[in-house]
């Protein structure tokens, strides 16, 4: 391979490192109305009266909208394939407010100071209602978050607004109860993770304007241009043909922008006023009204023989979707399906779940999408099993983990066609020097060093659902334009997909220009989430490139006077006749395409896959615990990834490193807590502590590639799996160092220090 599997620099790299103005707020028109939102101070309330008359009178204020001004058709803000599994439970502004921070009024004016002044003049009379802040209390509570009649669940996910349920399911495989009874040992634990925030460095922001044709144009920091178009059509109750959505360079996503968090408000302003409008979320707003990870409590039960052979796994997940149901019914599924499946062809499994509404901000999609929480529970339980059986945690995995070719009944019945988990585990073990360091070493100075391990998996796109799209065109001078609907959020897919096209068309990657994403121009693509882009959009890119190559060959054949294209070959620059050595250049063919030409040189392919081949990963952490202060120092993290063929080793490595550090944050420093009134305490970087570069030690990432037959050049995916190992690996290391088992994240130095003290007494 000449271009694929090469560490090629991203196409936008130099623009980004020299600070070029390429983001939403850099390119927004200067005369945009500034849009801001007045937010509810109550976790649950009914607006009895809202008086915006004084605010509207402030000179320079263009408009102030309340629940009285918006369409009454409910919609979802979730970026998913239609019909969305997430309930249609939203209005642009609602008379019932359901969490602290829920928007209550939209104010648009000439500048920020004016808008702030107008906001202070709005008088709201709330009937304060009792909120449900504890997700254990939500199901079947008398208090209903969504009592409204026009709440709707379009898909059968077990949702019932009269029970505060956004989804619910029970499933069993094999004779679960019987097998569990027969097991020599059953180990159990309930693991609690919180509503962690993705904190992309660029907050949510959108600007909107009306174009020459009376259409609403939306430029947004989003991962899902096509879904946004649909969501806005529903929300504003206007035809989708009236909407165009464009995505410029965006400053990170990690799933946060797989929900239409901010778009609907400036869109409404522009649609109503005809004027351009812009809404830039503050960091605080991006903490309190965003789309964080679903808080989950995952109970895991593992039944095994006394020699450590795992026979059955049971998982029950209680998931907190917050005030609205985006991604609630879907994230929960991964907490079982993409965790239990690490152990392949089990005799039996059970997977039950409930997803409940509460009066905190709506959760959404965050890298891992439920698998992160489920794997934390399952891998921690495997570690617990190993400890109770006195079997090395690496060995117990070697005995039980899924192998290439093995069926995974808990993974939608799919088979692990490509799986190098065994090589990943062996290599990680070598890298961290597991045998020397397990379980721990007392350093003699009040500190103890230890190691911990976790496996991980994810998927590659949603099988039978996600659609990748690619259009490729030949231009004069023989360069190509690759038009995409997928969203490069820094991940580098614009470059990776160009690499795939360049490999097919046997040229330098610089000859392929990538353009994304614009709903009027781009081929349909579900968007960048579910680790789909390299896999399904990669396949679409290959197909489109191949179709273009055929057209090039055909024209070359005509120009060379050869009938049978089988007698020709293409080397990227020339179409050559193998018979007589005649050749015609790509440039000449491109020129021909612009004169007296009936042959199209632009091809589009759309691709879905019937399977979702899992990437696999092993993470091993080495830590040093200060037994007196409880401080955990990250010394080393060895990670080995099987993402199939690595399309771009640099970008894949950085993805892994970024995901690992996010995982470290979830375990050691990122907490989410609420006051009694339901206000989020961690509403800034001052309180929500994401890791700084001093909070992680060495990170070492390597690849052990399997070959995925259904993937482009054997590739699978890497975008999400990378966050899934640190939770169990670090919790395991802390146990090995201290003997303390933790079931809730984050684990603070206080919990460790006081736990050790209690132990000693």
């Amino acid at each position, binding site marked *: 391979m000449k271009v694929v599997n090469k560490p090629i620099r991203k196409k936008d790299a130099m623009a980004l490192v020299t600070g070029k103005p390429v983001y939403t707020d850099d390119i927004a028109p200067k005369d945009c109305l500034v849009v801001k939102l007045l937010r509810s101070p109550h976790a649950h309330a009914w607006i009895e009266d809202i008086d915006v008359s004084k605010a509207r009178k402030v000179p320079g204020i263009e408009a102030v909208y309340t629940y009285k001004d918006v369409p009454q058709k409910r919609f979802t803000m979730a970026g998913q394939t239609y019909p969305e599994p997430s309930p249609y439970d939203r209005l642009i502004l609602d008379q019932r407010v359901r969490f602290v921070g829920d928007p209550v009024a939209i104010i648009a004016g000439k500048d920020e100071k004016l808008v702030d002044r107008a906001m202070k003049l709005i008088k709201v009379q709330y009937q304060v209602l009792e909120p449900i802040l504890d997700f254990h209390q939500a199901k079947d509570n008398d208090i209903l978050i969504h009592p409204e009649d026009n709440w709707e669940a379009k898909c059968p996910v077990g949702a019932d607004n009269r029970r505060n349920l956004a989804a619910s399911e029970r499933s069993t495989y094999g004779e679960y109860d019987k097998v569990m009874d027969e097991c020599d040992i059953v180990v159990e634990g309930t693991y609690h993770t919180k509503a962690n925030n993705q904190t992309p*460095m660029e907050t949510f922001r959108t600007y909107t304007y009306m174009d020459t044709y009376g259409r609403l144009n939306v430029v947004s920091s989003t991962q899902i241009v096509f879904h946004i178009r649909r969501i806005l059509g529903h929300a504003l109750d206007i035809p989708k043909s009236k909407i165009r959505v464009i995505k410029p360079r965006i400053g990170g996503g990690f799933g946060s922008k797989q929900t239409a968090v901010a778009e609907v408000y400036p869109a409404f302003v522009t649609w109503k006023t005809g004027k351009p409008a812009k809404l830039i979320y503050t960091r605080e707003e991006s903490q309190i009204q965003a789309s964080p990870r679903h808080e989950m409590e995952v109970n895991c039960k593992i039944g095994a023989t006394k020699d450590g052979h795992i026979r059955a796994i049971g998982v029950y997940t209680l998931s907190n979707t917050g005030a609205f149901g985006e991604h609630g019914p879907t994230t929960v599924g991964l907490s079982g399906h993409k965790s239990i499946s690490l152990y392949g062809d089990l005799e039996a499994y059970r997977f039950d779940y409930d997803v409940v509404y509460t009066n905190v901000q709506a959760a959404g999609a965050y890298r891992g999408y439920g698998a992160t929480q489920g794997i934390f529970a399952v891998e921690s339980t495997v570690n617990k099993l190993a400890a109770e059986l006195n079997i090395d945690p690496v060995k117990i995995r070697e005995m039980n983990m899924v192998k290439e070719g093995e069926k995974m009944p808990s993974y939608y019945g799919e088979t692990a066609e490509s799986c190098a988990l065994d090589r990943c585990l062996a290599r990680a073990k070598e890298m961290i020097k597991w045998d020397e360091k397990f379980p721990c070493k007392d350093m003699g100075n009040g500190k103890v060093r230890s190691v911990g391990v976790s496996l991980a998996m994810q998927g590659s796109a949603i099988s039978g659902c996600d659609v990748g799209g690619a259009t490729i065109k030949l231009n004069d001078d023989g360069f190509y334009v690759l038009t995409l609907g997928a969203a490069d959020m820094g991940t580098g897919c614009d470059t990776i997909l160009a690499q795939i096209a360049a490999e097919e068309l046997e040229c330098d990657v610089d000859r392929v220009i990538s353009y994304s994403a614009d709903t009027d121009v781009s081929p349909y693509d579900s968007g960048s989430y579910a680790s789909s882009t390299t896999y399904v959009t990669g396949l679409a890119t290959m197909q489109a490139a191949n179709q273009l190559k055929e057209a090039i060959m055909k024209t070359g054949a005509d120009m060379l006077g050869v009938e049978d294209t089988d007698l020709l070959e293409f080397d990227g620059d020339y179409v050559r006749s193998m018979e007589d050595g005649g050749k015609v250049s790509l440039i000449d063919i491109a020129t021909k395409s612009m004169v007296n030409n009936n042959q199209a040189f632009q091809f589009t392919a759309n691709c879905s896959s019937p399977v979702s081949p899992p990437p696999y990963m092993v993470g091993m952490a080495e830590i040093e615990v200060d037994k007196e202060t409880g401080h955990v120092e990250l010394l080393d993290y060895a990670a080995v990834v099987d993402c199939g063929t690595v399309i771009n080793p640099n970008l894949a490595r950085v993805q892994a490193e970024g995901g690992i550090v996010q995982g470290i944050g979830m375990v050691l420093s990122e907490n989410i807590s609420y006051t009694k009134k339901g206000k989020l305490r961690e509403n800034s970087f001052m309180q929500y502590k994401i890791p700084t570069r001093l909070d992680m030690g060495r990170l070492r990432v390597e690849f052990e590639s399997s070959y995925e037959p259904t993937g482009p050049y054997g590739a699978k995916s890497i975008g999400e799996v990378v966050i899934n190992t640190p939770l169990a690996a670090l919790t395991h290391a802390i146990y090995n160092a201290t003997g303390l088992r933790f079931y809730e994240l984050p684990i603070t130095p206080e919990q460790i220090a006081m736990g050790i003290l209690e132990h000693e007494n």
Partner: protein
Amino acid sequence: MQISMILNGKKIMAEAEPDMMLLEFVRMQGCYSVKRGCETANCGLCTVFLDEKPVLSCSTLAVRADGRRVTTLEGLQEEAEEFGVFIANQGAEQCGFCNPGFMMNAIALFRENPYPSEEEIKEYLAGNLCRCSGYEGQLRGILAFLEYKKEMEQKGE
């Protein structure tokens, strides 16, 4: 109020409200590389030079820059490109939003301490948050740049 300063080597005069921050001011002057990432002075995205010292422009009054020299990445394009290549070669720029602040502070580091150790690099840049890259790629890029710098210096260039 009228404010005058040397912004990226050019003398400018502009109207600014007394409570306007330097961040808003420089963006109004077209220096879009300077980004806002938070409201609590934690992230470092807004780093600019005020008289050669790296400062948080989100917390510096525009009026306090009156009569002084302000530099943003727009005024350091050559240095940014020379050093940035090493970050780009790691793929560590990722979404790029933290990059300008990171580049500014890294350039400040190199000026203060031409050959910093890994510890010194991490500590100096501690106030530059990044969520995409996991920091490791940025460190690799810096170390590669320092190698290159040393080679160039030894060659006498």
